[in-house]
């Protein structure tokens, strides 16, 4: 059984989902891609926007979320952390 995702895991999944979509994604797509409920999505998205890791933009009447440089850097940092944990046996 896989372990419960931590806050950092969820944030990383959200940022990676945006990156995989070329840096911009619709909010509903992000919810499905990052495997989140609506309330979770709202909570984490607010935090990401507040910390300037993600921005909201309007494109042809649709709302899109784009990842900022700060968001990309944070994703790199968390990915390095995960690699470090796996290599040095620090998980769980």
């Amino acid at each position, binding site marked *: 059984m896989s372990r419960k995702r*931590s806050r*950092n895991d969820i944030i990383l999944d959200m940022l990676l989902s945006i*990156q995989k979509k070329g840096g911009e994604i619709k909010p509903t797509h992000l919810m499905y891609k990052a495997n989140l409920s609506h309330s979770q999505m709202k909570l984490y998205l607010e935090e990401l926007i507040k910390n300037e890791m993600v921005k909201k933009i309007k494109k042809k009447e649709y709302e899109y979320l784009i990842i900022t440089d700060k968001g*990309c850097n944070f994703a*790199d*940092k*968390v*990915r*390095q*952390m*995960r*690699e*470090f*944990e*796996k*290599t*040095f*046996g*620090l*998980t769980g």
Partner: protein
Amino acid sequence: MVDLIFSPLWFMGKDIIIDIFSMIILFLIAFFSFKCYKTDKCNKNHFYLSLSFLMIGLSFLFKIFTNFVVYKEIVEKQTLGLLTIIHTVTVQAYLPSYLSSILQKSFMLIGLYFLYVVLEKNKTIIDHVMVISLLLLITHLSHMRHLYYYITVLVMLSIISAKYYLLFKKNKQRRTKYLSYSFVIIATSQILFFFITKYKNFYVLGEIVQAIGYVMLLVIFIMVLKRGKKKR
């Protein structure tokens, strides 16, 4: 009086440079692990790993200090004959070197123990107190017989290498396998240090092998950082 000089004359100073290099590698990993702990405070293993590498790094710092004090006296008294030099060194530099050497050994052993704790979970406070007391006792005993210290370090490093190899079998991470190899190399250097009281050239060989182990550790650390950045 305890022998404080293991290096041949031509290698004095060079070993300090090698140790500074190893110490920087250890501090780098400790710093990164502490940064990870600050990001994700839920995972205490980051903190223990950081503490472990910091203590091993400090152990190198004390070793460098010990050697620096001893070598400085040698340079100052170089006009005298070799026997007089060694006698002068052991008398004048004895106290600071003794304290520094005790700190070096205790920091190394406790640092390695913390590394073991990261890999072997489910330890109680009593286990920690018992093992640390035992390690401090070994540190004290090993001051007269260096062999006790090197044997203890060898045993601890061998266990850590084996633990990392078992972890590799589970997680199939190539870097974990290399990590276990790097600890095997560092453990091998301890075997060479067994003979340094009789043959000073083994000290040179031991320092070189140990440095190779730490360089490998650095390479693995760089691989981890690069791999973390690659997956965009």
